[in-house]
Protein backbone atom coordinates (compact mmCIF):
# COMPACT_ATOMS: atom_id res chain seq x y z
CA UNK A 1 0.00 0.00 0.00
CA UNK A 2 2.76 2.44 1.06
CA UNK A 3 4.90 1.45 -1.91
CA UNK A 4 1.99 2.05 -4.32
CA UNK A 5 1.43 5.48 -2.78
CA UNK A 6 5.15 6.27 -3.07
CA UNK A 7 5.08 5.26 -6.73
CA UNK A 8 2.08 7.50 -7.40
CA UNK A 9 3.80 10.39 -5.63
CA UNK A 10 6.95 9.87 -7.70
CA UNK A 11 4.91 9.81 -10.93
CA UNK A 12 3.13 13.02 -9.92
CA UNK A 13 6.49 14.58 -9.03
CA UNK A 14 7.87 13.58 -12.44
CA UNK A 15 4.93 15.01 -14.34
CA UNK A 16 5.09 18.32 -12.46
CA UNK A 17 8.88 18.67 -12.87
CA UNK A 18 9.01 17.74 -16.54
CA UNK A 19 5.88 19.76 -17.29
CA UNK A 20 7.59 22.80 -15.80
CA UNK A 21 10.80 21.90 -17.65
CA UNK A 22 9.05 21.73 -21.01
CA UNK A 23 7.18 24.98 -20.29
CA UNK A 24 10.50 26.70 -19.53
CA UNK A 25 12.19 25.23 -22.60
CA UNK A 26 9.41 26.30 -24.97
CA UNK A 27 9.42 29.82 -23.53
CA UNK A 28 13.11 30.51 -24.13
CA UNK A 29 13.19 32.21 -27.51
CA UNK A 30 16.57 33.54 -28.59
CA UNK A 31 16.52 36.69 -30.68
CA UNK A 32 16.56 36.39 -34.43
CA UNK A 33 18.16 39.69 -35.42
CA UNK A 34 21.15 41.85 -34.57
CA UNK A 35 20.86 45.47 -33.50
CA UNK A 36 23.57 47.41 -35.37
CA UNK A 37 25.13 50.10 -33.15
CA UNK A 38 23.50 53.51 -33.44
CA UNK A 39 26.14 55.98 -34.58
CA UNK A 40 25.87 59.63 -35.37
CA UNK A 41 28.40 61.21 -37.67
CA UNK A 42 29.42 64.70 -36.70
CA UNK A 43 31.05 66.50 -39.57
CA UNK A 44 33.89 68.28 -37.84
CA UNK A 45 35.78 70.82 -39.86
CA UNK A 46 38.95 70.03 -37.93
CA UNK A 47 40.56 66.68 -38.46
CA UNK A 48 41.31 65.39 -34.97
CA UNK A 49 43.98 62.85 -34.18
CA UNK A 50 45.07 62.76 -30.54
CA UNK A 51 46.89 60.31 -28.36
CA UNK A 52 47.60 60.05 -24.66
CA UNK A 53 48.31 57.52 -21.97
CA UNK A 54 45.25 56.16 -20.18
CA UNK A 55 47.11 54.50 -17.33
CA UNK A 56 49.45 56.42 -15.11
CA UNK A 57 50.72 53.90 -12.57
CA UNK A 58 54.44 53.22 -12.96
CA UNK A 59 56.42 50.01 -12.62
CA UNK A 60 53.51 47.67 -13.24
CA UNK A 61 52.46 45.49 -16.13
CA UNK A 62 49.25 46.53 -17.83
CA UNK A 63 47.32 44.72 -20.53
CA UNK A 64 43.97 43.95 -22.15
CA UNK A 65 42.36 47.38 -22.19
CA UNK A 66 38.81 48.06 -23.30
CA UNK A 67 36.61 51.14 -23.39
CA UNK A 68 32.94 52.16 -23.41
CA UNK A 69 31.14 55.44 -23.92
CA UNK A 70 29.27 56.72 -20.88
CA UNK A 71 25.81 58.26 -21.05
CA UNK A 72 27.23 61.80 -20.81
CA UNK A 73 29.65 61.30 -23.71
CA UNK A 74 32.73 60.64 -21.57
CA UNK A 75 34.61 57.38 -21.95
CA UNK A 76 35.52 54.81 -19.34
CA UNK A 77 38.43 52.47 -19.98
CA UNK A 78 39.31 49.25 -18.16
CA UNK A 79 42.46 47.16 -18.13
CA UNK A 80 44.32 44.84 -15.81
CA UNK A 81 47.32 46.02 -13.85
CA UNK A 82 49.72 44.31 -11.45
CA UNK A 83 53.27 43.18 -10.84
CA UNK A 84 53.03 40.81 -13.82
CA UNK A 85 50.34 39.14 -15.93
CA UNK A 86 48.74 36.34 -13.92
CA UNK A 87 50.02 37.52 -10.54
CA UNK A 88 47.72 37.45 -7.53
CA UNK A 89 48.02 41.24 -7.12
CA UNK A 90 46.55 41.99 -10.54
CA UNK A 91 43.51 44.25 -10.32
CA UNK A 92 41.08 45.64 -12.85
CA UNK A 93 41.74 49.36 -13.16
CA UNK A 94 39.66 52.09 -14.75
CA UNK A 95 39.93 55.74 -15.78
CA UNK A 96 37.53 58.23 -17.35
CA UNK A 97 38.24 60.39 -20.42
CA UNK A 98 36.66 63.79 -20.81
CA UNK A 99 36.56 64.56 -24.55
CA UNK A 100 36.02 68.27 -23.94
CA UNK A 101 39.26 68.58 -21.95
CA UNK A 102 41.03 65.75 -23.76
CA UNK A 103 42.26 64.33 -20.46
CA UNK A 104 42.08 61.06 -18.59
CA UNK A 105 41.29 60.95 -14.88
CA UNK A 106 43.61 59.29 -12.40
CA UNK A 107 43.27 55.54 -12.62
CA UNK A 108 41.41 53.68 -9.91
CA UNK A 109 41.07 50.03 -8.96
CA UNK A 110 37.63 48.65 -9.80
CA UNK A 111 37.95 45.14 -8.48
CA UNK A 112 40.65 42.88 -7.05
CA UNK A 113 41.12 39.13 -6.80
CA UNK A 114 40.16 39.27 -3.12
CA UNK A 115 36.98 41.28 -3.80
CA UNK A 116 36.01 38.82 -6.48
CA UNK A 117 36.49 35.66 -4.48
CA UNK A 118 34.62 37.10 -1.50
CA UNK A 119 31.65 37.93 -3.74
CA UNK A 120 31.76 34.65 -5.63
CA UNK A 121 32.28 32.54 -2.51
CA UNK A 122 34.92 30.67 -4.48
CA UNK A 123 38.68 30.70 -4.46
CA UNK A 124 40.04 32.91 -7.26
CA UNK A 125 43.71 32.75 -8.24
CA UNK A 126 44.00 35.60 -10.76
CA UNK A 127 42.11 38.12 -12.87
CA UNK A 128 42.32 38.82 -16.60
CA UNK A 129 40.73 40.60 -19.57
CA UNK A 130 37.90 43.05 -18.73
CA UNK A 131 35.20 43.93 -21.29
CA UNK A 132 32.45 46.49 -20.56
CA UNK A 133 28.93 46.28 -21.96
CA UNK A 134 25.78 48.40 -21.88
CA UNK A 135 22.59 46.48 -21.14
CA UNK A 136 19.29 47.48 -22.71
CA UNK A 137 18.14 48.93 -19.37
CA UNK A 138 21.15 51.26 -19.27
CA UNK A 139 23.10 49.35 -16.65
CA UNK A 140 26.85 49.27 -17.17
CA UNK A 141 28.25 45.74 -17.03
CA UNK A 142 31.84 44.69 -16.70
CA UNK A 143 32.69 41.13 -17.67
CA UNK A 144 36.15 39.94 -16.76
CA UNK A 145 38.18 36.77 -16.76
CA UNK A 146 38.88 34.94 -13.51
CA UNK A 147 40.94 31.81 -12.94
CA UNK A 148 40.64 29.47 -9.96
CA UNK A 149 43.14 26.83 -11.06
CA UNK A 150 45.77 26.47 -13.75
CA UNK A 151 46.61 28.99 -16.45
CA UNK A 152 44.41 31.08 -18.72
CA UNK A 153 42.90 27.89 -20.18
CA UNK A 154 41.21 27.45 -16.79
CA UNK A 155 39.36 30.77 -17.03
CA UNK A 156 35.74 31.56 -16.30
CA UNK A 157 33.84 34.79 -16.84
CA UNK A 158 32.72 36.93 -13.93
CA UNK A 159 30.44 39.98 -14.10
CA UNK A 160 29.82 43.07 -12.03
CA UNK A 161 27.32 45.86 -12.70
CA UNK A 162 27.15 49.56 -12.05
CA UNK A 163 24.09 51.79 -11.94
CA UNK A 164 26.21 54.97 -11.69
CA UNK A 165 28.44 54.67 -14.75
CA UNK A 166 31.24 52.87 -12.98
CA UNK A 167 31.58 54.91 -9.78
CA UNK A 168 30.43 51.95 -7.67
CA UNK A 169 30.01 48.29 -8.53
CA UNK A 170 27.81 45.39 -7.46
CA UNK A 171 29.17 42.16 -5.97
CA UNK A 172 30.57 39.81 -8.60
CA UNK A 173 28.53 37.05 -10.23
CA UNK A 174 29.88 34.05 -12.08
CA UNK A 175 28.73 33.03 -15.56
CA UNK A 176 28.50 29.27 -16.01
CA UNK A 177 29.42 28.60 -19.61
CA UNK A 178 31.21 25.25 -19.75
CA UNK A 179 30.29 21.77 -18.50
CA UNK A 180 33.85 20.83 -17.59
CA UNK A 181 34.32 22.45 -14.14
CA UNK A 182 33.16 25.66 -15.87
CA UNK A 183 36.66 26.23 -17.18
CA UNK A 184 38.01 27.79 -20.33
CA UNK A 185 35.73 30.60 -21.34
CA UNK A 186 37.58 33.87 -21.93
CA UNK A 187 36.62 37.14 -23.56
CA UNK A 188 38.30 39.98 -25.41
CA UNK A 189 35.99 41.35 -28.11
CA UNK A 190 33.30 44.00 -27.75
CA UNK A 191 29.72 42.83 -27.09
CA UNK A 192 26.91 43.23 -29.60
CA UNK A 193 23.19 43.88 -29.14
CA UNK A 194 20.16 41.98 -30.39
CA UNK A 195 16.89 43.63 -31.38
CA UNK A 196 15.07 42.19 -28.35
CA UNK A 197 17.40 43.89 -25.85
CA UNK A 198 19.54 40.83 -25.21
CA UNK A 199 23.29 40.85 -25.70
CA UNK A 200 25.87 38.81 -27.56
CA UNK A 201 29.27 38.37 -25.98
CA UNK A 202 32.02 37.02 -28.25
CA UNK A 203 34.10 34.60 -26.16
CA UNK A 204 36.59 31.82 -26.78
CA UNK A 205 37.78 28.51 -25.41
CA UNK A 206 41.42 27.47 -24.88
CA UNK A 207 41.47 24.18 -22.92
CA UNK A 208 42.65 21.24 -25.10
CA UNK A 209 41.63 23.07 -28.28
CA UNK A 210 40.99 26.68 -29.20
CA UNK A 211 37.76 27.92 -30.74
CA UNK A 212 35.52 30.96 -30.85
CA UNK A 213 32.04 31.09 -29.32
CA UNK A 214 29.18 33.53 -28.95
CA UNK A 215 27.34 33.81 -25.63
CA UNK A 216 23.77 35.10 -25.67
CA UNK A 217 22.82 36.89 -22.45
CA UNK A 218 19.56 38.42 -21.29
CA UNK A 219 19.32 41.89 -19.74
CA UNK A 220 19.98 40.46 -16.29
CA UNK A 221 23.16 38.74 -17.45
CA UNK A 222 21.77 35.20 -17.50
CA UNK A 223 23.21 32.93 -20.16
CA UNK A 224 20.46 32.09 -22.68
CA UNK A 225 22.55 30.30 -25.27
CA UNK A 226 26.07 29.55 -26.39
CA UNK A 227 27.00 29.05 -29.98
CA UNK A 228 30.22 27.67 -31.41
CA UNK A 229 31.69 29.81 -34.19
CA UNK A 230 34.49 27.43 -35.19
CA UNK A 231 35.24 23.80 -34.42
CA UNK A 232 38.14 23.07 -32.13
CA UNK A 233 41.51 22.67 -33.75
CA UNK A 234 41.28 25.67 -36.06
CA UNK A 235 43.33 27.84 -33.72
CA UNK A 236 40.74 30.62 -33.85
CA UNK A 237 40.17 32.69 -30.75
CA UNK A 238 39.29 36.17 -29.48
CA UNK A 239 36.40 36.77 -31.89
CA UNK A 240 35.46 40.32 -32.84
CA UNK A 241 32.00 40.81 -34.34
CA UNK A 242 31.28 43.28 -37.10
CA UNK A 243 27.51 43.68 -37.37
CA UNK A 244 26.62 45.07 -40.81
CA UNK A 245 22.83 45.00 -40.51
CA UNK A 246 20.14 43.05 -38.60
CA UNK A 247 21.03 39.79 -40.33
CA UNK A 248 24.61 40.04 -41.62
CA UNK A 249 27.77 39.93 -39.55
CA UNK A 250 31.42 39.15 -40.05
CA UNK A 251 33.57 37.72 -37.26
CA UNK A 252 37.34 38.16 -37.28
CA UNK A 253 39.46 36.00 -34.99
CA UNK A 254 43.06 35.84 -33.87
CA UNK A 255 44.85 32.88 -35.43
CA UNK A 256 46.85 30.81 -32.92
CA UNK A 257 47.52 27.85 -35.20
CA UNK A 258 50.85 26.70 -36.58
CA UNK A 259 50.09 26.80 -40.30
CA UNK A 260 51.30 29.56 -42.57
CA UNK A 261 50.09 31.96 -43.76
CA UNK A 262 49.41 33.49 -40.36
CA UNK A 263 46.22 35.38 -41.06
CA UNK A 264 43.15 36.29 -39.03
CA UNK A 265 40.32 33.76 -39.29
CA UNK A 266 36.91 34.91 -40.49
CA UNK A 267 33.41 33.45 -40.36
CA UNK A 268 30.18 35.14 -41.45
CA UNK A 269 26.44 34.86 -41.06
CA UNK A 270 23.58 36.08 -43.23
CA UNK A 271 20.76 34.98 -40.90
CA UNK A 272 21.65 36.71 -37.61
CA UNK A 273 23.76 33.85 -36.36
CA UNK A 274 21.47 30.93 -37.11
CA UNK A 275 24.19 29.58 -39.39
CA UNK A 276 27.85 30.47 -39.83
CA UNK A 277 30.16 29.94 -42.77
CA UNK A 278 33.14 27.63 -42.45
CA UNK A 279 36.23 29.37 -41.02
CA UNK A 280 38.54 30.85 -43.64
CA UNK A 281 41.77 32.77 -43.51
CA UNK A 282 41.12 36.46 -44.15
CA UNK A 283 43.37 38.92 -45.93
CA UNK A 284 44.59 40.31 -42.58
CA UNK A 285 48.00 39.14 -41.39
CA UNK A 286 48.02 38.01 -37.78
CA UNK A 287 50.98 37.02 -35.57
CA UNK A 288 48.80 35.18 -33.00
CA UNK A 289 47.59 38.46 -31.50
CA UNK A 290 44.26 40.10 -30.73
CA UNK A 291 42.63 42.52 -33.13
CA UNK A 292 39.89 45.14 -32.98
CA UNK A 293 37.39 46.10 -35.67
CA UNK A 294 34.16 48.00 -36.24
CA UNK A 295 31.72 48.90 -39.00
CA UNK A 296 31.46 52.57 -39.96
CA UNK A 297 28.01 54.03 -40.65
CA UNK A 298 28.78 54.07 -44.39
CA UNK A 299 29.41 50.30 -44.33
CA UNK A 300 33.19 50.42 -44.53
CA UNK A 301 35.08 48.46 -41.90
CA UNK A 302 38.01 49.56 -39.78
CA UNK A 303 40.43 47.17 -38.12
CA UNK A 304 43.42 47.68 -35.87
CA UNK A 305 45.92 44.88 -35.58
CA UNK A 306 49.52 43.78 -35.80
CA UNK A 307 49.52 43.51 -39.58
CA UNK A 308 52.60 41.26 -39.58
CA UNK A 309 53.14 37.52 -39.32
CA UNK A 310 55.48 37.56 -36.32
CA UNK A 311 55.90 39.64 -33.17
CA UNK A 312 53.84 42.62 -32.09
CA UNK A 313 56.14 45.55 -32.78
CA UNK A 314 53.90 47.23 -35.36
CA UNK A 315 50.25 48.19 -35.17
CA UNK A 316 48.20 49.36 -38.12
CA UNK A 317 44.85 50.96 -38.80
CA UNK A 318 43.27 49.16 -41.77
CA UNK A 319 40.15 49.75 -43.85
CA UNK A 320 37.96 47.51 -45.97
CA UNK A 321 35.44 48.86 -48.44
CA UNK A 322 34.20 45.45 -49.62
CA UNK A 323 32.77 43.90 -46.47
CA UNK A 324 36.05 42.55 -45.11
CA UNK A 325 37.29 40.78 -48.25
CA UNK A 326 40.28 43.04 -48.88
CA UNK A 327 42.03 45.46 -46.54
CA UNK A 328 44.36 48.43 -46.96
CA UNK A 329 46.53 50.19 -44.42
CA UNK A 330 45.18 53.64 -43.57
CA UNK A 331 47.77 54.65 -41.02
CA UNK A 332 50.68 53.01 -39.18
CA UNK A 333 49.88 53.60 -35.52
CA UNK A 334 53.15 52.07 -34.29
CA UNK A 335 56.10 50.80 -36.25
CA UNK A 336 59.35 49.50 -34.77
CA UNK A 337 60.07 46.93 -37.48
CA UNK A 338 63.35 48.66 -38.30
CA UNK A 339 64.65 47.92 -34.80
CA UNK A 340 64.48 44.17 -35.39
CA UNK A 341 67.75 44.24 -37.34
CA UNK A 342 70.05 44.23 -34.34
CA UNK A 343 69.63 43.55 -30.61
CA UNK A 344 68.57 46.68 -28.78
CA UNK A 345 70.87 47.87 -26.01
CA UNK A 346 69.38 49.76 -23.10
CA UNK A 347 70.65 53.18 -24.20
CA UNK A 348 69.22 52.89 -27.70
CA UNK A 349 65.99 51.43 -26.37
CA UNK A 350 65.67 54.35 -23.93
CA UNK A 351 66.23 56.87 -26.70
CA UNK A 352 63.50 55.34 -28.86
CA UNK A 353 61.17 55.16 -25.86
CA UNK A 354 61.68 58.84 -25.06
CA UNK A 355 60.54 59.69 -28.56
CA UNK A 356 57.54 57.37 -28.35
CA UNK A 357 56.45 58.82 -25.00
CA UNK A 358 56.64 62.37 -26.36
CA UNK A 359 54.77 61.32 -29.52
CA UNK A 360 52.04 59.80 -27.38
CA UNK A 361 51.70 62.68 -24.98
CA UNK A 362 53.65 65.84 -25.70
CA UNK A 363 52.73 67.26 -22.31
CA UNK A 364 54.15 64.28 -20.39
CA UNK A 365 56.37 65.85 -17.74
CA UNK A 366 58.14 62.81 -16.41
CA UNK A 367 59.33 61.12 -19.58
CA UNK A 368 62.20 59.47 -17.71
CA UNK A 369 59.89 57.61 -15.37
CA UNK A 370 57.81 56.32 -18.32
CA UNK A 371 61.01 55.10 -19.94
CA UNK A 372 62.32 53.45 -16.77
CA UNK A 373 58.98 51.80 -16.10
CA UNK A 374 58.83 50.44 -19.65
CA UNK A 375 62.42 49.21 -19.64
CA UNK A 376 61.66 47.28 -16.42
CA UNK A 377 58.98 45.32 -18.28
CA UNK A 378 60.45 45.02 -21.78
CA UNK A 379 64.14 44.42 -21.03
CA UNK A 380 64.60 41.36 -18.89
CA UNK A 381 65.41 37.80 -19.73
CA UNK A 382 64.77 38.67 -23.37
CA UNK A 383 66.58 41.52 -25.14
CA UNK A 384 64.72 44.83 -25.11
CA UNK A 385 61.78 44.69 -27.48
CA UNK A 386 58.57 46.52 -28.31
CA UNK A 387 54.98 45.40 -28.03
CA UNK A 388 51.85 47.23 -29.19
CA UNK A 389 48.97 44.84 -28.81
CA UNK A 390 45.42 43.98 -27.70
CA UNK A 391 43.63 46.87 -29.43
CA UNK A 392 40.01 47.65 -28.54
CA UNK A 393 38.10 50.15 -30.66
CA UNK A 394 34.70 51.82 -30.44
CA UNK A 395 32.89 54.57 -32.27
CA UNK A 396 31.29 57.18 -30.01
CA UNK A 397 27.84 58.58 -30.66
CA UNK A 398 29.38 61.76 -32.13
CA UNK A 399 31.27 59.70 -34.70
CA UNK A 400 34.72 59.92 -33.05
CA UNK A 401 36.66 56.71 -32.98
CA UNK A 402 38.49 55.73 -29.83
CA UNK A 403 41.18 53.11 -29.70
CA UNK A 404 42.97 51.80 -26.61
CA UNK A 405 45.80 49.28 -26.63
CA UNK A 406 48.67 47.84 -24.66
CA UNK A 407 51.77 49.99 -25.00
CA UNK A 408 54.85 47.91 -24.24
CA UNK A 409 53.00 46.01 -21.51
CA UNK A 410 53.64 49.00 -19.26
CA UNK A 411 50.94 51.52 -20.12
CA UNK A 412 47.61 51.74 -21.88
CA UNK A 413 47.56 54.13 -24.82
CA UNK A 414 44.52 55.95 -26.19
CA UNK A 415 44.17 57.19 -29.75
CA UNK A 416 41.22 59.32 -30.78
CA UNK A 417 40.44 60.35 -34.32
CA UNK A 418 37.41 61.71 -36.06
CA UNK A 419 35.68 61.16 -39.37
CA UNK A 420 37.38 64.17 -40.98
CA UNK A 421 40.85 62.82 -40.13
CA UNK A 422 39.84 59.41 -41.41
CA UNK A 423 38.35 60.83 -44.64
CA UNK A 424 41.51 62.83 -45.23
CA UNK A 425 43.65 59.70 -44.96
CA UNK A 426 41.27 57.61 -47.01
CA UNK A 427 41.40 60.21 -49.81
CA UNK A 428 45.17 59.89 -49.92
CA UNK A 429 44.99 56.14 -50.41
CA UNK A 430 45.55 54.74 -53.90
Amino acid at each position, binding site marked *: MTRRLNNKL*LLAFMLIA*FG*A*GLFKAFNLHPSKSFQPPAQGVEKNSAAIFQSSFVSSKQNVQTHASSVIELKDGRLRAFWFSGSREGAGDVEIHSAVFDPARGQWSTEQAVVSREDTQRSLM*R*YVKKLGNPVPARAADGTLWLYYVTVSMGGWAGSSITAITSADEGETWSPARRL*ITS*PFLNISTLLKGAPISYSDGTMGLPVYHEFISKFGELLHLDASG*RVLDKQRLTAGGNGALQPVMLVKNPTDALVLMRYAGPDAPHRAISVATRDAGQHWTAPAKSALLNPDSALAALVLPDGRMLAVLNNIEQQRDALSLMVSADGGVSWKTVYPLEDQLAERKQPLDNAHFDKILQGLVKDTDASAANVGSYVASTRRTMCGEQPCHFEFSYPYMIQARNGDIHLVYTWNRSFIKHVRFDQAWLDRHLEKMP
Partner: protein
Amino acid sequence: MMAFTDMTGLAGSVIVIAAVAARLPVAARLHRPYFSLLLGVVAIAAMIPFGDLPLAAYVRGIIGDLSIVSLVLLLQSMTRPLCGWPRPDVQSRVALLALVALGAVALYPMALGAGLFDPYRLGYGSPWLVGALLLIALAAYFRRMVLVAFCLTLAVLAWVAGWYESTNLWDYLLDPLLAIYATGALVAHGARRLRT
Protein backbone atom coordinates in the same frame (compact mmCIF):
# COMPACT_ATOMS: atom_id res chain seq x y z
CA MET B 1 24.04 39.18 1.78
CA MET B 2 25.00 35.87 0.25
CA ALA B 3 23.16 35.00 -2.98
CA PHE B 4 20.84 32.00 -2.91
CA THR B 5 22.88 30.24 -5.59
CA ASP B 6 26.04 30.72 -3.50
CA MET B 7 24.29 29.06 -0.56
CA THR B 8 23.26 26.09 -2.67
CA GLY B 9 26.69 25.86 -4.28
CA LEU B 10 28.51 26.02 -0.95
CA ALA B 11 26.10 23.45 0.51
CA GLY B 12 27.18 21.08 -2.25
CA SER B 13 30.85 21.62 -1.37
CA VAL B 14 30.08 21.00 2.31
CA ILE B 15 28.40 17.72 1.35
CA VAL B 16 31.50 16.71 -0.63
CA ILE B 17 33.78 17.46 2.31
CA ALA B 18 31.49 15.60 4.72
CA ALA B 19 31.30 12.65 2.32
CA VAL B 20 35.10 12.49 2.19
CA ALA B 21 35.19 12.55 6.01
CA ALA B 22 32.58 9.77 6.13
CA ARG B 23 34.87 7.61 3.99
CA LEU B 24 37.84 7.94 6.37
CA PRO B 25 38.74 4.62 8.05
CA VAL B 26 38.20 6.16 11.46
CA ALA B 27 34.62 7.10 10.54
CA ALA B 28 33.75 3.52 9.61
CA ARG B 29 34.57 2.38 13.15
CA LEU B 30 32.33 4.97 14.83
CA HIS B 31 28.94 4.18 16.32
CA ARG B 32 25.97 5.92 14.80
CA PRO B 33 25.77 8.93 17.20
CA TYR B 34 29.50 9.61 16.93
CA PHE B 35 29.38 9.22 13.14
CA SER B 36 26.59 11.84 13.07
CA LEU B 37 28.64 14.09 15.33
CA LEU B 38 31.68 13.72 13.07
CA LEU B 39 29.67 14.69 9.98
CA GLY B 40 28.16 17.66 11.82
CA VAL B 41 31.54 18.92 13.05
CA VAL B 42 33.13 18.53 9.61
CA ALA B 43 30.22 20.35 7.96
CA ILE B 44 30.46 23.26 10.39
CA ALA B 45 34.27 23.40 10.11
CA ALA B 46 33.95 23.55 6.31
CA MET B 47 31.91 26.73 6.66
CA ILE B 48 34.23 28.55 9.07
CA PRO B 49 36.26 31.17 7.19
CA PHE B 50 40.01 31.04 7.32
CA GLY B 51 41.81 33.67 5.35
CA ASP B 52 39.21 35.22 3.09
CA LEU B 53 37.04 32.17 2.61
CA PRO B 54 35.74 29.00 4.26
CA LEU B 55 37.16 25.63 3.17
CA ALA B 56 33.94 24.93 1.26
CA ALA B 57 34.59 27.99 -0.94
CA TYR B 58 38.11 26.79 -1.80
CA VAL B 59 36.67 23.40 -2.77
CA ARG B 60 33.95 25.15 -4.78
CA GLY B 61 36.61 27.20 -6.59
CA ILE B 62 38.16 23.99 -7.88
CA ILE B 63 35.25 21.60 -8.49
CA GLY B 64 32.45 24.07 -9.13
CA ASP B 65 28.85 23.25 -8.22
CA LEU B 66 28.11 19.54 -8.08
CA SER B 67 25.30 18.14 -10.18
CA ILE B 68 22.04 17.18 -8.49
CA VAL B 69 22.72 13.54 -9.35
CA SER B 70 26.04 13.72 -7.49
CA LEU B 71 24.36 15.27 -4.48
CA VAL B 72 21.68 12.57 -4.37
CA LEU B 73 24.30 9.82 -4.50
CA LEU B 74 26.51 11.47 -1.89
CA LEU B 75 23.63 12.16 0.48
CA GLN B 76 22.37 8.64 0.00
CA SER B 77 25.78 7.14 0.84
CA MET B 78 26.17 9.34 3.92
CA THR B 79 22.68 8.96 5.36
CA ARG B 80 22.37 5.23 4.81
CA PRO B 81 24.59 4.30 7.79
CA LEU B 82 22.77 6.87 9.93
CA CYS B 83 19.24 5.79 9.08
CA GLY B 84 19.91 2.10 8.63
CA TRP B 85 18.35 2.15 5.14
CA PRO B 86 19.00 -0.79 2.81
CA ARG B 87 21.33 -0.39 -0.16
CA PRO B 88 19.50 0.78 -3.31
CA ASP B 89 18.81 -2.00 -5.76
CA VAL B 90 21.85 -2.76 -7.87
CA GLN B 91 20.00 -2.65 -11.19
CA SER B 92 18.75 0.88 -10.60
CA ARG B 93 22.14 2.11 -9.43
CA VAL B 94 24.00 0.52 -12.36
CA ALA B 95 21.47 1.97 -14.81
CA LEU B 96 22.00 5.44 -13.34
CA LEU B 97 25.78 5.14 -13.50
CA ALA B 98 25.57 3.84 -17.07
CA LEU B 99 23.42 6.82 -18.05
CA VAL B 100 25.94 9.17 -16.42
CA ALA B 101 28.86 7.52 -18.24
CA LEU B 102 27.02 7.61 -21.56
CA GLY B 103 26.06 11.23 -21.01
CA ALA B 104 29.67 12.12 -20.21
CA VAL B 105 30.94 10.40 -23.36
CA ALA B 106 28.31 12.22 -25.42
CA LEU B 107 28.91 15.60 -23.78
CA TYR B 108 32.51 16.24 -22.77
CA PRO B 109 34.58 15.48 -25.91
CA MET B 110 32.31 17.58 -28.12
CA ALA B 111 31.90 20.32 -25.50
CA LEU B 112 35.69 20.60 -25.36
CA GLY B 113 35.95 21.20 -29.08
CA ALA B 114 35.63 17.94 -30.99
CA GLY B 115 33.67 19.09 -34.04
CA LEU B 116 31.34 22.01 -34.59
CA PHE B 117 28.33 20.60 -32.78
CA ASP B 118 28.22 21.48 -29.10
CA PRO B 119 25.77 19.29 -27.14
CA TYR B 120 26.16 21.59 -24.12
CA ARG B 121 24.10 24.12 -26.11
CA LEU B 122 21.08 21.82 -25.80
CA GLY B 123 21.17 22.39 -22.05
CA TYR B 124 20.13 26.03 -22.46
CA GLY B 125 16.50 25.05 -22.87
CA SER B 126 16.20 22.61 -25.75
CA PRO B 127 12.74 20.97 -25.58
CA TRP B 128 14.36 17.95 -27.26
CA LEU B 129 16.72 17.40 -24.32
CA VAL B 130 13.94 17.84 -21.75
CA GLY B 131 11.69 15.52 -23.79
CA ALA B 132 14.41 12.87 -24.07
CA LEU B 133 15.00 13.01 -20.32
CA LEU B 134 11.24 12.64 -19.73
CA LEU B 135 11.18 9.49 -21.85
CA ILE B 136 14.18 8.04 -19.99
CA ALA B 137 12.61 8.89 -16.63
CA LEU B 138 9.28 7.31 -17.63
CA ALA B 139 11.04 4.19 -18.89
CA ALA B 140 12.96 3.97 -15.63
CA TYR B 141 9.76 4.50 -13.62
CA PHE B 142 7.91 1.70 -15.39
CA ARG B 143 10.92 -0.61 -15.01
CA ARG B 144 10.92 0.23 -11.27
CA MET B 145 14.30 1.97 -11.41
CA VAL B 146 13.24 4.53 -8.85
CA LEU B 147 16.70 6.02 -8.34
CA VAL B 148 17.03 6.88 -12.04
CA ALA B 149 13.56 8.40 -12.29
CA PHE B 150 14.03 10.34 -9.05
CA CYS B 151 17.47 11.75 -9.95
CA LEU B 152 16.41 12.91 -13.43
CA THR B 153 13.23 14.48 -12.09
CA LEU B 154 15.00 16.29 -9.27
CA ALA B 155 17.66 17.59 -11.68
CA VAL B 156 15.02 18.99 -14.06
CA LEU B 157 13.11 20.55 -11.18
CA ALA B 158 16.28 22.17 -9.80
CA TRP B 159 17.06 23.56 -13.28
CA VAL B 160 13.56 25.01 -13.58
CA ALA B 161 13.86 26.55 -10.11
CA GLY B 162 17.30 28.04 -10.81
CA TRP B 163 18.89 26.17 -7.91
CA TYR B 164 22.42 26.92 -9.10
CA GLU B 165 24.09 29.81 -10.95
CA SER B 166 24.08 27.70 -14.08
CA THR B 167 21.20 28.08 -16.51
CA ASN B 168 22.28 24.92 -18.32
CA LEU B 169 20.41 21.67 -17.64
CA TRP B 170 23.53 19.56 -18.23
CA ASP B 171 25.12 21.07 -15.11
CA TYR B 172 22.27 19.69 -13.03
CA LEU B 173 22.63 16.22 -14.53
CA LEU B 174 26.36 15.68 -14.78
CA ASP B 175 29.70 16.84 -13.51
CA PRO B 176 33.21 15.59 -14.31
CA LEU B 177 33.74 14.06 -10.85
CA LEU B 178 30.50 12.11 -11.17
CA ALA B 179 31.52 10.95 -14.65
CA ILE B 180 34.86 9.68 -13.30
CA TYR B 181 33.13 7.96 -10.38
CA ALA B 182 30.48 6.39 -12.62
CA THR B 183 33.08 5.03 -15.03
CA GLY B 184 35.15 3.58 -12.19
CA ALA B 185 32.14 2.09 -10.43
CA LEU B 186 30.89 0.48 -13.66
CA VAL B 187 34.32 -1.03 -14.34
CA ALA B 188 34.43 -2.38 -10.76
CA HIS B 189 30.88 -3.72 -11.12
CA GLY B 190 31.80 -5.46 -14.39
CA ALA B 191 34.94 -6.95 -12.86
CA ARG B 192 32.91 -8.30 -9.92
CA ARG B 193 30.40 -9.88 -12.28
CA LEU B 194 33.18 -11.48 -14.29
CA ARG B 195 34.71 -12.98 -11.13
CA THR B 196 31.41 -14.43 -9.99
